């Protein structure tokens, strides 16, 4: 069996470095501030582009997300790791995805963006990362107590292809209805004229970078939540090496590119409500831990044929729609009108799932 370089420690450090540098470059080429890559924000932008919400500052189909799934698909097929599978409590995973997104949008970022915000000097991300660690720790408590969502089983190859095909469909829509300067709609797609949704690197560059990261992340099993979980649960630092490498190389790249501005106030697409930065990411971290992967990892798993991960991704997209339609999402001005209630409900739901889902797996 040919050895997989990317799943070694050196390999995952290399992958983290590549992701960190490319994220900084994507920001330089037009993606929003400290948001070269943000899986939550970008899935939220996709939800907007297809009209699931009408927050007009965050509507754009992000090719990075499409690339993550399809790049992972290419890697999986290239190395015979495409395994179509299903059946591990998909409805629970959908709900976890909804609340993971809601938590992330209270903080204004997923774990990838939390790291990138810190790498850009946004010290509010320290609170976010502490919250993420806390949420993952709570998840670890449940894991140690026998929490699991049950075994998946093999399914049709075509089932494993569903999310990749949806992603190809979204990409096709971008070509059929391309952005028209000055127009907030092109055919069926919404395109932001202002705000983060209007800030994006060129389509093809975003897509190619997404494909490259999708490929490398699938090979290396890159996971920002797993990095913290494995440290807390097993004292293992393998995934953490990749996480820290991303942080360090993104920081260096930001300094070189003039994108490093340390401080708490005036940070791009961020607020400085410390308690809610902590609690938003704690909710997201708990949901990712219960679902077995960070939002990036869920996309890479989906590309490998894991349809349970695909359902989590759909849950995140639906969660983004709820967040903007119900006023749950934060903005640089602060919390949304129902953000606090959403975080409380989210914790209640995740704690219920954590306590209730102890499917017996005969060992």
């Amino acid at each position: 069996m040919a050895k997989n370089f990317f799943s070694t420690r050196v390999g995952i450090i290399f992958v983290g470095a590549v992701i960190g540098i490319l994220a900084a470059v994507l920001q330089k080429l037009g993606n929003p501030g400290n948001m070269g890559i943000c899986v939550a924000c970008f899935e939220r932008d996709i939800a907007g582009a297809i009209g699931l919400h009408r927050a007009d500052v965050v509507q754009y189909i992000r090719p990075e997300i499409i690339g993550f799934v399809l790049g992972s698909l290419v890697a999986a097929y290239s190395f015979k790791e495409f395994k179509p599978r299903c059946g591990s409590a998909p409805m629970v995973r959908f709900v976890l995805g909804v609340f993971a997104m809601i938590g992330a949008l209270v903080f204004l970022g997923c774990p990838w963006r939390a790291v990138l915000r810190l790498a850009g000097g946004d010290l509010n991300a320290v609170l976010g990362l502490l919250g993420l660690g806390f949420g993952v720790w709570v998840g670890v408590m449940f894991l140690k107590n026998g929490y699991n969502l049950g075994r998946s089983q093999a399914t049709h190859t075509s089932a494993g292809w569903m999310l990749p095909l949806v992603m190809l469909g979204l990409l096709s829509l971008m070509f059929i209805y391309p952005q028209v300067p000055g127009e907030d709609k092109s055919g069926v797609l919404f395109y932001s004229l202002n705000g983060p949704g209007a800030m994006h690197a060129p389509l093809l560059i975003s897509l190619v970078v997404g494909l490259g990261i999708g490929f490398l992340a699938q090979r290396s099993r890159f996971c920002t939540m797993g990095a913290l979980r494995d440290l807390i649960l097993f004292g293992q630092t393998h995934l953490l090496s990749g996480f820290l490498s991303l942080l360090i190389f993104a920081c260096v790249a930001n300094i070189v590119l003039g994108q490093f501005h340390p401080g708490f106030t005036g940070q791009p697409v961020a607020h400085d409500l410390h308690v809610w930065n902590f609690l938003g990411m704690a909710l997201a971290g708990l949901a990712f831990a219960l679902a077995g992967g960070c939002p990036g990892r869920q996309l890479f798993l989906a590309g490998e044929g894991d349809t349970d991960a695909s359902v989590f991704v759909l849950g995140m997209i639906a969660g983004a729609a709820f967040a903007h339609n119900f006023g749950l999402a934060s903005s640089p001005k602060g919390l949304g009108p129902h953000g606090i209630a959403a975080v409380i409900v989210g914790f209640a739901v995740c704690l219920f799932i954590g306590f209730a889902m102890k499917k017996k797996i005969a060992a």
Partner: protein
Amino acid sequence: MSKIVDARGLSCPQPVLMTLDAIKSGSDGELEVIVDNMASRENVVRAAESHDWSVFEIKDNDDKTQIFIRKG
């Protein structure tokens, strides 16, 4: 007779959790862990080795991989 840990259909962290539980409960110093994907295989091998168990055989089949580990 070595204990068998069947982690098929499970993704991280279950295969490692089950392996480490079996390691901690003694298991006559030998274990067979069955996984069905490469990531689980890598994780189980890494976890076993970090707990001073060694992998003495791996059998790859179409639908499963059997990892045989022993203490020391």
